[in-house]
């Protein structure tokens, strides 16, 4: 009863909130200036890897990623090269307007050409540029430098 009169429970609650006033405890991150640390396995914007020395794409257009994608967002167009009898990638579109970033395409890719990079700034001003073509995929993420 005594504790009830002297409001001990309320005071203990007040003590907890008072303790957290110290600037050290502040947790906010002022986004454009302080960037969050991204994990290495983060699944963000997809990217097509390029063979470092020859510069042409690693993709052998085997169409496995298109089959693995639950939302059928990847379209691989390739035509058979008469000389080498092997399929050559002609066009590759990746529509991220409905992508769930689940990473199934990355796993299905046999030559790990396709990879989800750590870029999380994917917003665009139009629906059209949500459909990434080969050039955009190879360019990979270019984080914009915000000033304001």
């Amino acid at each position: 009863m005594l504790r009830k009169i002297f409001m001990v429970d309320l005071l203990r609650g007040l003590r907890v909130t008072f303790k957290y006033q110290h600037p050290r405890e502040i947790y906010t991150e002022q986004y454009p200036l302080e960037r969050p640390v991204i994990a290495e396995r983060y699944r963000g914007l997809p990217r097509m890897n390029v063979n470092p020395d020859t510069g042409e794409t690693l993709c052998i257009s085997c169409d496995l990623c298109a089959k693995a994608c639950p939302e059928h967002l990847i379209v691989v167009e390739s035509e058979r090269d008469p000389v080498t009898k092997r399929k050559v990638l002609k066009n590759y579109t990746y529509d991220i307007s409905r992508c769930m970033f689940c990473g199934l395409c990355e796993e299905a890719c046999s030559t790990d050409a396709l990879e989800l990079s750590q870029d999380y700034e994917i917003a665009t001003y139009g629906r059209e540029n949500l459909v990434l073509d080969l050039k955009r995929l190879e360019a990979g993420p270019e984080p914009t430098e915000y000033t304001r």
Partner: protein
Amino acid sequence: MLDQLTGYLSSNLTPGAAGNSLWALIYILLIFAGVSFFVMLMNWVERKALAHFQIRLGPMRVGPHGLLQPIADAVKLMTKEDVIPAGADKTIFWMAPVWVVLTGFTTLIVVPFGPTHAVTDMNIGILYMLGISSLGVLGIIMAGWASNSHYPLMGSLRSSAQMVSYEVAMGLAIVSAIMMTSFTGYGMYGAGTAAGTGTLSMIQIVEAQKAQHVWFVFKFFPLGFIAFGIFAIAMIAETNRAPFDLPEAESELVAGFHTEYSGLRWSLFMLAEYAGMFAVSSIAATLWLGGWMRPFPNALAGPTWDLAFSLVPGALLLLVAVAAFYNAARMPKHLAMRIQTLGLWGLGAVIALVGLIMLIPAVRVRIADISWFVMKVGFFMYLYIWYRATFPRYRFDQLMRVGWKVLLPVALGVLIVTGIAGLTPELLAWAKGAR
């Protein structure tokens, strides 16, 4: 005209009492501007302090550390479209905020910032303040009823019941403080021989505390403190804040009685709420914490102490200036931030200047009273924010139960016991005489 102007300066009466209406007007304007600035400042302080309680930063974007946020809010509220709901009762809808602001501000004319610094010194000061603040409830009911929709109606009914029931507890707590003004004894437990006459006037109350060399909070130690405690709880409920903010409980009634208001009208409600908070905490400061008296006026008397205490306001402002400079130095070195850092340096310089002026002996004496009073009210404001950050909300029936079943009996008890304590010497004399 001129002599009327200078004639008053020598007198030690409040302008109202001295019948000098010109100065009274100046005081009114001063208080009106002061409280409006206080509301702007309070808006910023509430956001920042609440944020720091909740381990976040609060506004940082608009001006350095969000200092221009209140101005931005004001401009936003001014320019926002002022929606009147279709089924609303136009006249009452328009009158409600005006009424609430009216009552909110008129209570302030009796607030004693200093022995002579009050618009007027009514001899029924406290009674006047209580009466006007209870009129504010009418404005809230009008707002709730005129919005013609469920949530505001329920919100306004709740808040009217709440304010009415807590006014009772508040009144009783005040009565026990008023009773103390009639004692003439010194120190904490001195009850004095002859029974003095109590006063309702705010300035006389502080004079009584000065005469008795004790703040009423410490008079007959547990009694004064309990009365102060009851008043503190009732005052929170009176202004619909913190644990008792049921009328504007976001989680249930969206925003209570001012749901349908927007733009300027809504800001009037906010203005009235903060003015109400200022008025109620000024009553608390005057009655229990000895208005404009500096702490320990008698225990630590003597010139050195006087000097030390009078330096405090100036030193405080200088401290704020140093904080501003420190933060300005720590501002990120971004191109866009350069203007903000300059602004912060400028602000720091202005505050430092004001601090220095306050340290000049001539100025020091005059502003000592006002600064102590404002500091005490500031302490109450901090309490408001602290409670808002920590406590959950009472349910409506529990709020009523606390109001009627807990605060009221305790207030009555304190009243009776203070009375008895105050009259002990006479009772003893009477008992001795009778035997």
